[in-house]
């Protein structure tokens, strides 16, 4: 059982992709990756990855798909953090 309906996850991921679409390629992909990494419950991330791996790649925007691939290949996405800023003062 998935934590949330996969169609909803795809819709949310592509909405995030729409925001980062105008950025240069690397920031576009890393922006999506960072957002998923820092704001999504890990079950949502893993369900999205499983759904994509099950033959649904075409449902994601290309840079969102690339971001999910980064999530899979980077064991420690946290060290590559470059998303929306922290408030540290």
């Amino acid at each position, binding site marked *: 059982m*998935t934590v*949330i*309906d996969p169609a909803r996850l795809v819709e949310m991921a592509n909405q995030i992709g729409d*925001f980062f679409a105008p*950025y240069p390629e690397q920031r576009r992909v890393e922006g999506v990756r960072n957002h998923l990494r820092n704001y999504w*419950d*890990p079950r*949502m991330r893993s369900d999205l990855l499983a759904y994509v791996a099950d033959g649904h790649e075409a449902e994601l925007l290309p840079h969102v798909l690339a971001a999910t691939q980064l999530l899979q290949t980077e064991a420690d996405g946290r060290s590559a953090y470059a998303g929306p800023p922290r*408030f540290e003062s």
Partner: protein
Amino acid sequence: MPIPVKPEQSTITTCAYCGVGCGFKAETSGGQIVRMTPWKEGKANHGHSCVKGRFAFDYYRHPDRVRAPMIRASIDDPWREVSWDEAFAYAAGELRRIQETHGSGSVGAVSSSRCTNEEIYLMQKFARVGLRNNNIDNCSRICHSPTQFGLSATLGAGAASQHFDSILQSDVILVVGANPTEGHPVFGSMMKRSVRRGAKLLVVDPRRTETVDSPHCQASVHLALRPGTNVLVLDSIAHVVVTERLYDEAFVRARCDWDDFELWMSQVGDARYSPDVVGPEAGLDPDDIRDLARRYAAGPNSTIYYGLGVTEHSQGSTGVMCLGNLAMACGMIGREGVGVNPLRGQGNVQGGSCLGSWPHMFTGYRFVTDAATRAVFENEWKIELDGEPGLRLPNMFDAAVAGSFKGIYIQGEDPVQSDPNRHHVEAALRNMECVIVQDLYETETTKFAHVLLPGSSSLEKNGTFTNAERRVSMVRKIVEPVAGLEDWEITVGMINAMGYELKYDHPSEVLDEIARTSPAYSGMSFDLIERVGSVQWPCNTAAPEGTEVLHTVTFPRGKGSFMLTEYVPTKERVDDRFPLLLTTGRILSQYNAGTQTRRTANNAWYDEDVLDISADDAAQRGLHDGDRVRVVSRYGETELGITVSGRVHPGVVYTTFHFAHTMVNAVTSDLNDWATNCPEYKVTAVEVTKVTS
């Protein structure tokens, strides 16, 4: 004429109704509140008040109050009154049973901006040490979560840059998607005062509100844009600033990331954001867009105030970023009279954002994925913490519908009435095995509850609120809580019942803990607030009595960041079946879902939600003032009376959402903000037809 009761005692406290946070003297006689008098020394209100804070206080002794804890095994069973200890043990037992069966992440909690900072902090502590997960959210998810995201991304801090009095030093006031004269009336009065002193008022709002045109308050420019086109219009304003070189290059070079500024200029400077292109799509005269942009950029001191008309969109966070970008580009940040300022809805929405009731953040907007931040709390709480984000409230409901989320502890919220897509929320709650609600009254949500914990109103407890200008003020107990416990004591009871031993003798000890773990609150204490009246964060060794204006020298991250804000039209569209756009808002005398104000004499001023419709649209449908109509969207329907109004343009209808039986959230769409899942309450395609029977 009755002789007024002479009060025996007077206690200073803070109004809980809106984000202004007015100081009041609560006057009592015979153990009951007889009068609320605005406090002249209150730094947020300077002795002013509105009709909610002044008169709508009797709700605390309304017969509807829940006066004892109650439990039931099934929502079809009658309630059974129990002791506090039995209620805590039953609730905790159910949550533990669910976690053993369905996993640690199958339960969560949500805190309320009607509660104090200390209570909100304790709710996130409940999730993290009691449930041992990060499934904690707060009600700003459905109002100002895009503020936290959008202002953090651009300016580095998800909060107002100014104090309220700063507006008296403004030459230009830009109000976007807000109606302060109704929603934040005491601040609205100050805004009018600034306008009377000569400040020029610019308004971006689909409706011709009182802010646009009322005695002592006329806007110089009003962009009555089509609902859903905020980002398009704000990008067009930026286009004028960029192409006419109205930006403050010296400020940007000194204070902001120049490379990001150039990237942003290339985006908004493109011809697709020219007023001549944007105007027709947004329903505006291109020259009005230019006029507004030129006036804002010219200042010399221009300030921005905005509300839910910006945030409650599928591009809510992007809209907030547009405002941060605009202020930085024109050098309108970091001194008196300028800035970017969210007008918060509930009394403690800012506290709800600051105090860590987020699934991805601890207090002070620090990520749970950050090991150093986790270490601060692990050291304080002596427990290992989950380093992964939890579920947001809308995702908890999604997960409940999918069958993977089974239990929730809701503090002082009524999501069935106030959250988007009522049918979805009802289905989610019905799918859960244990719903715990802590509230003043039985509500639409308690119909789905298994445990009902009688909450305490803001008149029955001690603590602090943080208002929309980051001002932390005292909330003082005026009368005893009807069921014996203050809200913070209830949550402590729940934490202990979950097996994590915890003891506080007074909420001041909770604020001390917040100060130990949260840099922006590090100098804060009850003693300090008692001594100086109220304190704006950041309050620390560099600013021991707080900070009125943010970003004066640097931004929290050093440089300000220009974010790209490409316009992505909402998927909610009008068509032949649903040709009108419904947008929503508030009225002066009622408050949010109306839970409190509906139980006071304020109903004499407004006792029913009404639909505003233009004369053209009414005539096309054969409608007249006072008719009852059916409002139908792709998501649901409801019935309302109508007012034929000059406040809305043809193609737009408007209503408030103060009354449970209206069920406005059965009509509004379930689209939401890309970054935060804040619902798009402000744009729903509908049709309106006369009710004939």
